[in-house]
């Protein structure tokens, strides 16, 4: 399993300074979350960890090795489910295995197993367009899980879902993670989502994005969204984001 280390990272797009001196460490097996206003560079940061973007300055490392390109050890789940509409659910889930040259039977077996764990037993032959938004996002989680990655990177995965589906999906995500030893990095604009799920929350400021606060959560799971501590932390984050005096 992997420890993620981001040190002195700067990033600009042309004259637009997006990230300024980002420093953060996520211990292996931890569930971390990043919250911050829209456009502050959260996705850019996550894409660097995924190996899809390189920093202008500083380093992004996994277990002490600089991340230069994507790797099956680190799977990313995109905001829009990003399934291939021309492939069935099963084929979508098997894509990574197929690229890696895994045999057809083996692929099928593993895809069926993962689909079961995300509650999509029996949808193997469906096309994405035949599924609901929540189900599609489950498929994209299955597509990542089937690769058995050390790190899961989630970019506002439930942003497009309705509130009720979102709560269900959060519980499902916790179940998948607990005991798996995987390192999780979740980006969200939903403060409650971060508080409900994460061991550690990084609060980012508006562009150019900086980490203004790191919060270590000591709350046991399952957490109650109505506990006093939860409310205090929510208020603290809202103040940091300038949403509340």
């Amino acid at each position, binding site marked *: 399993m992997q420890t993620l280390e981001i040190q002195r990272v700067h990033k600009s797009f042309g004259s637009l300074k997006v990230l300024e001196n980002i420093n953060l460490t996520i211990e292996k097996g931890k569930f971390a979350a990043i919250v911050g206003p829209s456009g502050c560079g959260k996705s850019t940061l996550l894409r660097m960890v995924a190996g899809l973007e390189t920093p202008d300055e500083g380093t992004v490392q996994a277990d002490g090795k600089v991340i230069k390109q994507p790797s099956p050890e680190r799977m990313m789940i*995109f905001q829009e489910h*990003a399934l*291939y509409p021309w*492939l069935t659910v099963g084929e979508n889930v098997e*894509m990574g295995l197929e690229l890696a040259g895994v045999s057809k039977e083996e692929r099928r077996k593993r895809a069926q197993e993962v689909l079961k764990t995300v509650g999509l037993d029996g949808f193997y032959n469906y096309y994405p*367009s*035949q599924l609901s938004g929540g189900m599609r996002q489950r498929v994209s989680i299955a*597509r990542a899980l089937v*690769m058995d990655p050390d790190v899961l990177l989630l970019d506002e995965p439930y942003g497009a879902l309705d509130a009720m589906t979102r709560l269900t999906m959060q519980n499902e995500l916790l179940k998948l993670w607990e005991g798996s030893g995987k390192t999780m990095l979740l980006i969200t604009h939903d403060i409650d989502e971060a508080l409900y799920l994460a061991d550690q929350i990084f609060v980012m400021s508006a562009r150019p994005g900086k980490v203004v606060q790191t919060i270590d959560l000591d709350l046991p799971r399952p957490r109650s969204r109505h506990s006093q501590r939860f409310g205090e932390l929510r208020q603290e984050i809202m103040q940091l984001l300038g949403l509340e005096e």
Partner: protein
Amino acid sequence: MAVPKMKSQTWKKVWPYAAAVGTLLLIWQVAAFFLPPYLLPGVPTVLERLAAGITEPEFLTSLKESLFRLIIGYPSACLLGGLLGLLAGLSRGFAVYLRSLIAILQSIPPITWIPFLIILFGFGNVPIITVIIIASFFPMALSVMNATEGINRTHLEVAKVLGATKGQLLRKVYLPETLPSFITGAQVAFGNAWRSLIASEMVGGASSGLGFSIKFAGEVAQMTDVLLYIVIIGMIAAFFDHVVLEWLKRRVLKWRYIEGAK
């Protein structure tokens, strides 16, 4: 459930088409009422001629010659256009070059090349097939180029994260995602190919083929034969476009026609 839905959709597409054909035949028949038969024979006369004609060796040779040129020229044009379009979609520099090349070729009606090609290669299949390719590669190239340029970034990044090599990106993302535009391109290209084939045969690219036959019938003032060839030329094009290419489209874009798909 999927089957009756498909059927009703096919019917919805078929009836306006049938109505259009009916209208044209009606106008023709009404006009034939007022004109002497040697100027405009009626629909039944021509249909009778059609029934008899399709077994005549002269007609069959003519048909065979035209189809042969089409079957060589059109797929070559699609292949060439598809490859150029894919390349242009991947390289900005090549895209600019290809667009200029196409703009120049488009300002010269393809049929204009016939005298040039006849001097170069002599009468026969080569000039005609070349004109078909010139006329029909570019709708394919443009269509595929636009689709490749507009490819979904996230789809590419998903594949990269999943470990795709450059070649795998091409086969597993670019190709399937641009497939609908291959089909659209192929449909437009077919129209161009068919028109330039008949035109080339008419202006003297060869002394055989449907285009040559209709020109010959015109020169000897055989109105029944002229109409016969018009009907046949239209029927073959409609068959290719609405049956062959449509079948291909449904086959390769199966996911688009699935029930409940958006």
